[in-house]
């Protein structure tokens, strides 16, 4: 199980977009404003040393130098890769350092948003760096933008609306009585059971769509 998760993760990583494109997106990285700038342009930070300053159990480093399209190394022994962990790209972005081909991955538990606020201050990075969760790297504009639901799921949601609301004059009568209930009571109560069915269909459509776009974008983890 764990092995398969790991393998999947690595396949996904291999499909990452080109380095240059990634770099372009970092200009608007969420945390870029909080990173202290420094005048040491070509200094590649000793990342291993920096990582060792992390005490928190929810951040652990995977150091990896080289081409970002290659498979990152295994995480340190004893650290599990779970679905709540995802890599962060750590890239020097000042114009001079742009040629440095170095991308490092941190894995951070997604569930603790507080990590984002202390990460830059803990990483006392000598080069001007940006930190971006890898799953956002493909977005050029990082403003929040809601995904619209698919047409199919909206149509499925309209079924209960039509049945329990708009068609009221068709079903609002006493006869025929079903299971001892007047027809209007019976109709609405049965839609309490049928509405979850429709919405389950919509849920199925939405999750299928989500996993499709997941694959298309080369893994958003």
């Amino acid at each position: 199980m764990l092995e398969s998760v790991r393998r999947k993760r690595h396949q996904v990583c291999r499909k990452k977009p080109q380095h240059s494109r990634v770099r372009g997106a970092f200009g608007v990285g969420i945390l870029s404003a909080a990173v202290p700038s420094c005048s040491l342009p070509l200094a590649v930070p000793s990342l291993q040393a920096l990582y060792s300053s992390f005490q928190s159990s929810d951040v652990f480093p995977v150091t990896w130098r080289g081409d970002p399209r290659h498979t990152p190394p295994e995480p340190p022994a004893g650290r599990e890769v779970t679905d709540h962990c995802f890599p962060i790209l750590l890239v020097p972005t000042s114009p001079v350092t742009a040629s440095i081909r170095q991308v490092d991955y941190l894995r951070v538990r997604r569930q603790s948003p507080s990590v984002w606020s202390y990460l830059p201050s803990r990483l006392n990075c000598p080069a001007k760096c940006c930190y971006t969760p890898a799953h956002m790297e493909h977005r050029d504009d990082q403003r929040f933008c809601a995904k619209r639901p698919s047409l199919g799921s909206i149509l499925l949601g309209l079924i209960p609306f039509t049945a329990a609301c708009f068609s009221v004059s068709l079903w609002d009568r006493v006869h025929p009585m079903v299971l001892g209930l007047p027809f209007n009571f019976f109709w609405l109560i049965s839609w309490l059971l049928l509405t979850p069915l429709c919405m389950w269909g919509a849920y199925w459509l939405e999750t299928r769509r989500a996993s499709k776009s997941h694959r298309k974008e080369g893994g958003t983890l």
Partner: protein
Amino acid sequence: MSPSAVALTLISAIVAAGSFVGFLGGSHRKMDLEQWIVGGRGFGMLLVWLLMAGEIYTTFTFLGASGWAYSKGAPVLYIIGYTSLAYVVSFYILPELWEAGGRYRLQTQGDFFQVRYNSKYLTAFVALVGMICIIPYLQLQITGLGIIVEVASFGAIHRTPAMVISFAIVAGFVFTSGIRGVAWVSVLKDVVLFFAAVFVGVAVPYIYFGGIGPMFVAVGRAKPGHLVMPGATTNLGHAWYISTVLLCAFGFYMWPQFFGASFTAKSGDTLRRNAVVMPLYIITMPLMFFVGLAALVVLPGLANGDLSMLMMVRKTFPPWFLGVIGGAGALTAMVPAAILILTAASLFAKNLCRPILAPSMTDQQVGKLAKITVVAITCAALGSAIFNSTTLVSLLLVGYAGVAQFFPGVVLGLYSKRTTMSGVFAGMVTGVLIAVLLMLSKHDPIMGLNAGFIALCFNFAVTGLVSLLTYTGENGFAPDLTSSPALRSRDNREPT
């Protein structure tokens, strides 16, 4: 033991158990503002489900569902109509709201308007309208609790001390445990209430009529026309049904407390799955209707329809069972009330007071202010519940029509970049004004339609029109957390 002593003991035992769970819920955690308001965003599906359901089963549904079935007849069906459709609406909105909530670390409804429209005046307006709508709702819970305890204890506890004691407890566990305490009391309450409702709803028709079918036949014979709309009323027909169901289904998750509850979930997917299964939870609601309808034949001529369920239980079952119902009823008032207090306090401190009056407050100070506000709001609502309870229902209806006016701002704001701040502000002011004017001048329903629904239509029209006129291209959510000074976290962890 006398019947009242038995009932009294059980009511106090259940309330005490509930309070114990409430205080325990947050006792192991350090309570910062994030934990207090949104439970650290870590609630799983079951807890979110119970929390949200806990907010739906308020005293209004507990007493009101059977009460409306008793006094109005078929129009009561709107309750099951709109609740199941509100979940359908939530399926499309809440997961995206949660995404935005996690990204910008939103805690309240006002925060959402702040990151989307970047105007502290719009945010303050939303917070103000939300708070004004919450207070009568809270007052209704308090009064309902007074009625339940008074009837269930055979008049042994007068409603005023019952209200004061239980709301002191509520304020206490909101103060110490925040939303976590509330969620765990909700678990206890739902278990008790579910079994009580199923038992009463099934037993009452069987005891008096020998089954649900014969009961409906008897009701149809006693009151012809009661079982189809407009029932015992003259103006609650089909047009009213459609407009009210639409208004309530759209407005439901615009209540600041429901809106805020979505941020407690662990993931957007939790909320989506929740929306799929939630309608099943309303299955106990028709049972409340049955009790009200049975009371129509068994106990005709009650002055207050809202008492029909409690009077039926008192007539049919032994005192200890009335005690259980009374205890469950008291918790039913306490859980939603706790959430209402929590929401109103955080709206006031975070979205109204800090941005407008004291921009330099830190998060810790906001937390303190919110906790003081908890006490103030509880006292205000208690006071008005004790001294004035005449206009409650009309105030609540205005409240529903009021919060529904947030809907265009939320939905259009979420899905369209072309919606502008001026558009939403203008639409919301128009909608709130129309709703208040029509309802306070007793024009509800107007032309067979729900007045709040008409206000909502105008709201949509004005929002769309003004947005088109004022759209300049630079719009949408804030680029990141730091660009919105009103929301920036001011705790110690942030690098300087």
